[in-house]
């Protein structure tokens, strides 16, 4: 320990810049992994806390097929009371306009207070002052009026809302005036959703949400909470067709599963930053060993064993990793705030509407940070630490232990063979099927390709040694010659750092190509499929969960506009599908309008429109590519969908391209939907205008006709396309952010590698100065070396990136999301990134270059 303090700790403190750079690398790596983990957890947690609030003390719940539980069936479910207390519920989201004009999203719970009293705690402010909870009758009195709403104390005080004050609830396109009759105390359920909860009477909620005749679910609080398994089974057996019993947590699990692929891919990406960060540990220990060879030699001469030397340097790595992980924990939590912002657009746009928050750090996070960073850091440090332990006393003391590395074609051939084996393995892995819906083999294929790329690095450097000299001498004269000679002699030392940079740059290129291709594909798809002139949607419409509806009045006003020639009414509901209960989207559209005006891009059969025509009014559906791929469904297959009358068969007539959701869409004609699921108000309208009409003008006229009582979003074709691309770009912002961090860390790796080389060559550099090399020439030489490393890494990175992008596009993307993406090369992005990498690595060479000019005559003997 004394030796560690004297030999390692003091050295680290003496060179704080290098120590800090390494700790920063590990910190960033750990922080990125944690941030993604916390952000992923946060996005689900946002949904689950809302779930908890709504669930209360509920043990089981009865849900219907897609559209809910018909009121009429409730009378037939009287036997449920044999098992426990029963409460019908409407659970939706709405927006509330406060007196100051601001609007805020709210979780709305519509309950029958007489039945719901035992399920949830209702601590009302006015009663709390009297030290008691309100009775059911008192609650009923509060909510009986159709204009009554109960908010939370926290929400009300934050937005300046008083008891008995007026607010407006915006539900679908309708604006309702309401009076705040009660304020829930800031505790229990009211607290967990940050106060964004409103309570309504169930009948009022049915009216406001256009759910007359329907309940979202019926909740059961069992008399015997311990007998939940038995109760679930017997209730399931007694339920009529079209109804299911499940635990409230089931919805959370469905959401988790829905997000699994998205989260899995983000997590995989985050680990790249960590791995690249750990290359810094390798570099730091390498610098330590190289710059202190003489000291090691002295220690060895004085009787220090190899094992002790090895322990010293491994201890250095462990210390750096421990500090990095410790600082990485709070940094990760802070980064998670940004990551949540970056991912919430995607999660909200494509999956669930929830207020994501970053959960606090737990012991699991601490264990993860140390459990990942420490072993990896020790593994990274093993090579240089072993090198240090092998320093012989005599060689180190003489300092004459660095010789020009010789060209060994056999080594290059061996490395090329290893690379070929890795690439072959990658190719084979890419052909394997996903595991549990996750592209595990696809990711293994990318790892194999990355391994192949790393194996190719010494081959590439050997190639540089053979052919690079002429170019460098021609361009950069004597500095080019020296840079070439230095790089050629340091292939062994450079391989790890260059490999790290190559991996980061290859991933960036792959992701850029994948995103570029995806963007091109989506742009084409949007151009082909978004044919309508106007798109009308109710306020607060989300991609999942119960969507708000458009009132008949609003629809009539839209249809009455003289420029409107056709309207496609569409409606979507979430529907569990298949043995695993995957939450798919069931859509209903007006097929005749779609056939005449729309532009669905069909994947199969060749004449998709003719096939779709057969589905008009029939028990037939068209399905999205994602649904077909994930559920293994082909054209002409028959699928079973849950309906309120029980499972019903539907024939699949066509598969179409869709990039709006990876959950999978099943679309049927509106009359077919009405036949099975009852008449439902549409959630959106696709409006076609006469050719001479100006969409923007019509939009303005429609908004004027709808007046302030209707809150509808009307997008023109152009604005909706722009919105699609905006969501697309927001979705991938986090991807670029993660990659930028990985590249930053990798470039720091290049800087420390060059520093290693400079320290190793201190005597040569001093000699160069003595024979007349100016500081500028030395600096130029080191910067040329840095730039060469950057350009070489980018060259190999681009080539490997193209291969990786093919795996991302044709394997991982298809297995994760079920989308076909047309390959397209974002040439300008790649050119720009190449220039950026060259400049960044040149800048990374400046500090080592400065160090290189500092060696004087004392280094030469």
């Amino acid at each position, binding site marked *: 320990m004394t030796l560690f303090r004297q030999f390692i700790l003091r050295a680290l403190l003496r060179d704080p810049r290098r120590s800090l750079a390494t700790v920063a690398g590990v910190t960033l790596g750990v922080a990125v992994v944690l941030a993604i983990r916390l952000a992923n957890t946060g996005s689900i947690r946002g949904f689950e806390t809302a779930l908890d609030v709504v669930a209360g003390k509920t043990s089981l719940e009865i849900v219907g097929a897609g559209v809910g539980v018909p009121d009429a069936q409730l009378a037939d479910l009287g036997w449920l009371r044999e098992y426990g207390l029963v409460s019908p519920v409407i659970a939706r989201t709405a927006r509330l306009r406060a007196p100051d004009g601001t609007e805020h999203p709210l979780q709305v719970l519509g309950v029958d207070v007489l039945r719901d009293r035992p399920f949830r705690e209702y601590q009302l402010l006015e009663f709390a002052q009297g030290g008691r909870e309100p009775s059911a009758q008192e609650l009923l009195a509060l909510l009986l009026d159709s204009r009554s709403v109960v908010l939370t104390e926290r929400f009300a005080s934050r937005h300046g809302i008083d008891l008995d004050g007026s607010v407006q609830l915006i539900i679908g396109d309708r604006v309702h005036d309401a009076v705040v009759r009660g304020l829930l105390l800031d505790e229990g359920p009211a607290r967990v959703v940050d106060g964004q909860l409103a309570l309504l009477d169930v009948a009022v909620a049915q009216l406001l949400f256009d759910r007359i005749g329907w309940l979202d679910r019926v909740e059961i609080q069992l008399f015997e909470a311990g007998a939940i398994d038995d109760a679930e089974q017997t209730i399931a057996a007694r339920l009529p067709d079209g109804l299911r019993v499940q635990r409230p947590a089931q919805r959370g699990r469905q959401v988790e599963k829905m997000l699994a692929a998205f989260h899995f891919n983000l997590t995989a990406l985050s680990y790249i930053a960590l791995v690249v960060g750990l290359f810094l540990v390798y570099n730091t220990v390498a610098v330590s060993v190289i710059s202190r060879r003489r000291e090691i030699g002295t220690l060895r001469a004085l009787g220090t064993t190899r094992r002790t030397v090895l322990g010293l340097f491994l201890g250095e790595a462990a210390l750096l990793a421990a500090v990095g992980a410790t600082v990485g924990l709070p940094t990760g939590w802070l980064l998670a705030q940004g990551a949540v912002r970056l991912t919430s657009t995607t999660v909200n746009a494509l999956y669930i509407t929830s207020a994501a928050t970053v959960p606090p750090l737990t012991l699991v996070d601490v264990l993860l940070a140390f459990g990942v960073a420490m072993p990896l850091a020790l593994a990274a440090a093993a090579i240089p630490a072993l090198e240090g332990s092998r320093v012989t006393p005599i060689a180190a003391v003489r300092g004459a232990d660095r010789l020009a590395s010789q060209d060994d074609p056999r080594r290059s051939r061996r490395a090329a063979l290893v690379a070929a084996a890795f690439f072959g393995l990658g190719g084979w892995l890419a052909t394997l099927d996903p595991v549990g819906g996750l592209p595990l083999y696809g990711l293994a294929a990318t790892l194999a390709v990355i391994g192949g790329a790393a194996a190719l690095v010494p081959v590439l450097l050997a190639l540089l040694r053979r052919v690079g000299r002429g170019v460098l001498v021609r361009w950069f*004269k004597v500095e080019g010659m020296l840079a070439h000679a230095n790089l050629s002699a340091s292939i062994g030392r450079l391989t790890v750092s260059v490999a790290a940079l190559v991996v980061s740059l290859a991933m960036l290129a792959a992701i850029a190509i994948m995103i570029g291709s995806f963007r091109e594909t989506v742009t084409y798809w949007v151009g082909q499929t978004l044919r309508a002139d106007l798109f009308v949607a109710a306020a607060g419409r989300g991609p999942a969960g119960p969507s708000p509806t458009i009132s008949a009045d609003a629809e009539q006003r839209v249809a009455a506009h003289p420029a409107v020639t056709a309207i496609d009414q569409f409606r979507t509901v979430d529907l569990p599908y298949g043995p695993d209960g995957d939450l798919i989207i069931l859509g209903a559209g007006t097929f005749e309008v779609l056939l005449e005006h729309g532009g669905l891009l069909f994947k199969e059969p060749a004449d998709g429109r003719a096939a779709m025509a057969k589905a008009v009014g029939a028990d037939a559906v068209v399905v999205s590519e994602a649904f077909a791929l994930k559920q293994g469904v082909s054209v002409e297959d028959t699928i079973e969908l849950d309906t309120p009358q029980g499972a019903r068969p539907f024939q699949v007539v066509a598969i179409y391209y869709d990039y709006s959701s990876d959950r999978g869409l099943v679309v049927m004609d509106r009359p077919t939907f009405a036949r099975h699921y009852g008449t439902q108000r549409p959630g959106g309208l696709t409006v076609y205008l006469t050719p001479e009409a100006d969409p923007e003008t019509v939009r303005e006229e429609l908004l004027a006709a709808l007046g302030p009582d209707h809150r509808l979003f009307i997008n023109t074709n152009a604005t909706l396309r722009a919105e699609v691309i905006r969501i697309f770009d927001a979705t991938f912002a986090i991807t670029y952010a993660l990659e930028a961090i990985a590249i930053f860390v990798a470039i720091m790796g290049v800087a420390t590698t060059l520093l290693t080389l400079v320290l190793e060559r201190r005597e040569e550099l001093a*000699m160069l100065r003595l024979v007349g090399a100016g500081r500028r020439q030395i600096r130029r030489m080191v910067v040329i070396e840095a730039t060469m490393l950057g350009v070489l890494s980018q060259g190999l990175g681009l080539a490997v990136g193209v291969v990786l992008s093919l795996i991302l596009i044709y394997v991982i993307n298809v297995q994760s999301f079920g989308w076909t993406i047309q390959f397209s090369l974002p040439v300008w992005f790649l050119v720009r990134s190449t220039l950026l990498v060259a400049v960044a690595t040149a800048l990374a060479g400046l500090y080592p270059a400065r160090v290189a000019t500092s060696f004087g005559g004392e280094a030469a003997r």
Partner: protein
Amino acid sequence: MSALQARNLRKVYGRGETGVDAVRGVSVELTAGECVAVVGPSGCGKSTLLHLCGGMDRPTAGTVVVDGVALAGLGDDGLTRLRRERVGFVFQFFNLLPTLTLAENIALPLLLAGVSAGEAADRARACADRVGLAHRLHHYPSQVSGGELQRSAVARAVVHRPALLIADEPTGNLDTDNGRLVLDLLRTLNDDIGVAVLLATHDQAIAARADRILRMRDGLVVGPVDAETAPTATTPPEVGAL
């Protein structure tokens, strides 16, 4: 014109009470073609004196003029240019760049001075020929013997025709035969191209072949000794000093 004029050189390492006087008021002058050996025990200030005279380090006090150029007025770039154009160095451990071939090592001062690659290669080849290394031009330092390494270092030190050659223990890492060969080479160049040689050595036999010998002790020159009267390698140094 003198190749080297150093007057009252003083060099203190460190400051205040902990400062160490490495050189304490030494003067030395070399004319073109002259060879002066500096002898003395380890730590007497030989190497420091050579560093000061070659523009590798700056004196705490005193002046150095190399080939008519006063070093005191030169900045870092000026000193670099001076070393590149007027000074050559040979060291005990050869200090060739391991990553360059012998030809490239020899040509290096010319290339650094901006001489075209073709001309530098020609002159390096001629110089290598002169030191008997024409057959080793494309070898790396790791592929040749110690004697050949030092001859390459000598070739590199004179390829740009310097006025002054600084040689710090040039034979210290060589066997007797190779040491003699290198010294012969230095003397030949000394005579042929008129380069002044200031060499530090422990070896009295080497010193004996210089035109003059400066004996140093504790940072001071304790007296010039004519080469003719200097002790030979077979005479114990203590006797020669008397």
